[in-house]
């Protein structure tokens, strides 16, 4: 998979829009199912992403309403990639000022390099204050691709 374009990190299978979750675990599970559907990671990686929060707390909630679910590179990651989940109703992670969360990006990495360029492009989007809200309005993958391209 090429690095250059952020759109390459996601696929129609890994973008789950306007879903329902009743807990942070369900929200991360959705992000994991997107990675599995796209052939990026196995079910065990989903559990690993949940374990990260169980172990170290909700530090993955890094911006208001936004969580970057991820775990360590491992054999459970088949290739690097990202998933996106938007929630109709936000869920609480116990993350203080950044709660509640309505957008979860799942990240799977195979090493410390291959995903960095895409992550950098995502970071450039996330400094835009309206980016998270603009994701909530999305109803199809094509519109998401448009946002990433702009």
């Amino acid at each position: 998979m090429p690095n250059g374009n952020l759109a390459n990190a996601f696929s129609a299978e890994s973008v789950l829009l306007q879903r329902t979750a009743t807990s942070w675990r369900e929200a991360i599970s959705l992000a994991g199912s997107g990675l599995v559907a796209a052939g990026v990671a196995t079910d065990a990686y989903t559990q690993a992403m949940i374990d990260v929060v169980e172990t170290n707390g909700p530090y993955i909630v890094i911006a208001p309403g936004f969580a970057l679910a991820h775990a360590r590179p491992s054999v459970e990651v088949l290739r690097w990639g990202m998933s996106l989940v938007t929630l109709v109703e936000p869920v609480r992670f116990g993350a203080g000022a950044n709660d509640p969360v309505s957008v979860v990006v799942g990240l799977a990495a195979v090493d410390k390099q291959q995903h960095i360029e895409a992550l950098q492009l995502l970071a450039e989007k996330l400094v835009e204050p309206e980016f998270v809200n603009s994701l909530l309005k999305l109803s199809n993958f094509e519109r998401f691709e448009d946002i990433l391209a702009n």
Partner: protein
Amino acid sequence: MKILAVCGEGIGTSVLLKMNADRVLKRLGIEALVEATDIETANATRDAQIFLTTAGLQDKLVGGAAEIIAIDKVFDLEELSDKLAAAIL
């Protein structure tokens, strides 16, 4: 000056922290090497002046001589700038 951007895994949150810290430090005119890493590696590192992490992880860090800065909103460059400036300048 060496700054470690730290998260649980060293591949996601810490990388984003590093990117934004690089941007803010440049704006502040501060020359620093910022490296993204995981908690275990950070706790074994002795030559960093600052550990930069996200709120909730600071209790897992043993900074030693390094000052620990916890960031609430990783993409709030004002918060990052204010906290880095307060620690360095």
